[in-house]
């Protein structure tokens, strides 16, 4: 087989073809052009909007505090920033529903590329213990969030962070072949480009008020009760049946087991976040969120060897006492089994702002 002749060189032509293909892919999807017109309601589009809001937030003269987290992170920055004068802290958030520490690593890299923007970063925990049912390391939903944030250089770390070969394959696709992962979004864009562009423009104009300053559910679980012996829950009548089933399930499910997988996952990704900020002025504050509208009576004692405790004892993070927000674990402050309602969010934000202000005040003065 003569691959190279005087006139033709097969390897050169095919190599050039691959090079051009990756150049086209990069031109369309790595320059930020396509990411700017992603469907705002898609997972990746939603994340991009959130990150953009934070990136565009002007940095004031106060200490900058950023919250990461998922939908349980009850910080309402609008509320926390009402008392900036007292706390000396200005709060931002990139807490996006459904995200996990792996996502937070890449999200932080996006909003704070030089690791010099924040005085403190708040990392929320459901529990300091490494308790989980789910196998977080193999969570494929992370891919949907992270598509726009991944770079070619992320290939080994990101791909190998997935234990299963199926998800490693998908992760490699997300890193290398951007067009492939945006395929559905791109085809939807082609179906009605004008509508998409209008929606994106509208989103850019109003995203802050839609997401950032939005009011949360004002209803509460006030009046609910749990009979832990009979394993029955009485819930307020306004809860729709699906939400009712979900709330009952969450409240009554067995305590999550300590998971070695989860310990290792937290070590990897929280460790990576902390490593990235090593030697910077940014301090990491771990906090346990209010656990729910009611707290089950048979909770096991806290595990002193959890990853969060290990990071704290190594001096890499500050651990807020785990009972700091216990007073907020009341039905009237929750909209469902997991999430604070508007009032709960207000109370939590005020408390958190005060705690963080106190914590940071002796260490650093206002800039």
């Amino acid at each position: 087989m003569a691959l190279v002749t005087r006139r033709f060189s097969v390897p050169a032509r095919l190599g050039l073809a691959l090079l051009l293909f990756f150049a086209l892919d990069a031109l369309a999807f790595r320059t930020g052009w396509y990411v700017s017109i992603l469907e705002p309601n898609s997972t990746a589009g939603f994340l991009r909007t959130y990150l953009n809001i934070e990136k565009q937030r002007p940095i004031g003269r106060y200490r900058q505090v950023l919250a990461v987290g998922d939908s349980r992170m009850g910080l309402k920055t609008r509320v926390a920033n009402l008392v900036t004068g007292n706390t000396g802290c200005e709060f931002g958030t990139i807490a996006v529903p459904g995200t996990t520490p792996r996502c937070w690593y890449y999200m932080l890299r996006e909003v704070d590329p030089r690791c010099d923007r924040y005085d403190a970063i708040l990392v929320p925990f459901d529990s300091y213990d490494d308790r989980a049912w789910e196998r977080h390391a193999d969570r494929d939903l992370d891919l949907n969030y992270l598509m726009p944030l991944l770079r070619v250089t992320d290939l080994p770390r990101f791909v190998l962070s997935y234990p299963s070969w199926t998800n490693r394959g998908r992760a490699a696709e997300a890193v290398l072949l951007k067009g492939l992962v945006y395929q559905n979004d791109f085809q939807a864009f082609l179906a009605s480009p004008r509508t998409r562009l209008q929606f994106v423009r509208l989103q850019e104009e109003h995203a802050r008020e839609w997401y950032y300053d939005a009011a949360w559910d004002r209803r509460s679980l006030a009046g609910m009760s749990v009979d832990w012996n009979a394993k029955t829950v009485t819930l307020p009548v306004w809860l729709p049946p699906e939400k009712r089933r979900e709330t009952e399930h969450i409240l009554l499910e067995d305590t999550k087991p300590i998971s070695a997988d989860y310990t290792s996952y937290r070590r990897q990704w929280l460790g990576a976040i902390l490593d990235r900020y090593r030697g910077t002025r940014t301090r990491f504050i771990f906090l346990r969120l209010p656990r729910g509208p009611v707290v089950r009576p048979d909770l096991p004692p806290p595990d002193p060897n959890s990853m969060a405790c290990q990071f704290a004892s190594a001096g890499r993070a500050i651990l807020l006492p785990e009972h700091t927000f216990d007073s907020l674990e009341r039905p009237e402050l929750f909209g469902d089994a997991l999430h604070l309602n508007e009032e709960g969010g207000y109370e939590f934000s005020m408390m958190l702002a005060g705690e963080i202000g106190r914590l940071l005040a002796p260490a650093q003065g206002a800039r």
Partner: protein
Amino acid sequence: MLFHTPQFFAFFVVVLVLFYALPRPARRWILLAASYFFYMCWNAKFVLLIVALTAIDYTAAMWMRRLPAGSKRKAALVMSLAANLGFLGFFKYYNFLAGNLAWVMARPFDAFALHIILPMGISFHTFQSMSYVIDVYRGEQEVITNVVDYALYIAFFPQLVAGPIVRARHFFADLYDWRAPDAREILRGTLLVVFGLLKKLAIADQFARIADVFFRDPAAHPGYLAAWSGVIAFSIQIFFDFSGYTDMAIGLAQILGFHFPENFRRPYLARSITEFWRRWHISLSTWLRDYLYIPLGGNRHGRWQTYRNLMLTMLLGGLWHGASWNFVIWGGYHGALLSLERILGIRERQRWSIFDPLRVALTFALASISWIFFRAATLRDSVYILRRLCSGAHGHILWLHWQLWFVLAALVLAVLEESYGWFERLPEAPAWVYASAIAVCLFCLELIGFSGRAVPFVYFQF
């Protein structure tokens, strides 16, 4: 293992490496083993059927070699044809005949039915086998004495399951005078594989979604615009699906040093149905011409015999595709159109005239109508859709705008290929032109290639 799956490409790379790494005498063994493995990935048991047919036809040809012309030689031919048609008839047509018999006897439709799995590619490899035996009988083909060579001819994996139907003389000319493909041939083969993938994944599978939605429930999409767009979506799907497969088969074979005949030549640019059949599934239409139409008398015995022969050939061609009345009607429809064009004296012309675009559009519409019988689940559905094509309400087009633009781009490329033959020039074009073409194809595949569950090729069912 479908051509457009990562598993197939991994398989092909292994075959390619072994093929070129091993000494020449071992290469046919590698190809035969790979071909049987390829088939066994679908269903291991049915490889025995291929082996059995191979043994029968090989033996029949060897007998013919020893026998002088006469009744014994003819008996060997008949035995071989009976075996091929017997297997084909049983696997493909038994349930069709049993269902019709049950209908005649006023019994439930499945009264005599058997649970039969149709062996993949049986229609293709039996026709290939039969052409060899007939050619040997006619003295137009030398008998192949090496059973491995003959087995490879029948089972060669690039064309095993959906053609093109390769004539023995072409295949053995390549096998016995095999020479390594040069750089130009490898570049052409690679281009064909990439084009084939693009046709299949980016166009055929996109339009398959539209066609599936329409044909699954035609009544849910009222109006003639919906009906025409659904029907044309299938016309596009079947062409790009089958020609995409064929391009890949030809390209893969070329990389291995084998040359398959052209199977499609831009059929939707045909100006008549006669011309359409010179451009569509060429390896089948020439097979039907050489082994059915001409032996029936062709056009040598007057007008009416010619029309009869055309009808018979196309009816059997229809039945070859599948065992249902829909396929019989499809074949009959084409036979009738071919006869009508003869009656009207429509002849193929080399030069294009100003009215030819209209003729192309008319031929495309006529071909599209025929695909209704091909795709609809039942005869009743076919008739319903036909009526809907000319219903009063207009409804709405089922396509998205960008799909229309994509097809128009493909049409422009086809017209340019017809006029300038750019495709054959591409491997010889400057490196950056060739590389850009491949890169653009890959980029389109990345963006538009259907990346859900692999959709099987339409012609695999035949």
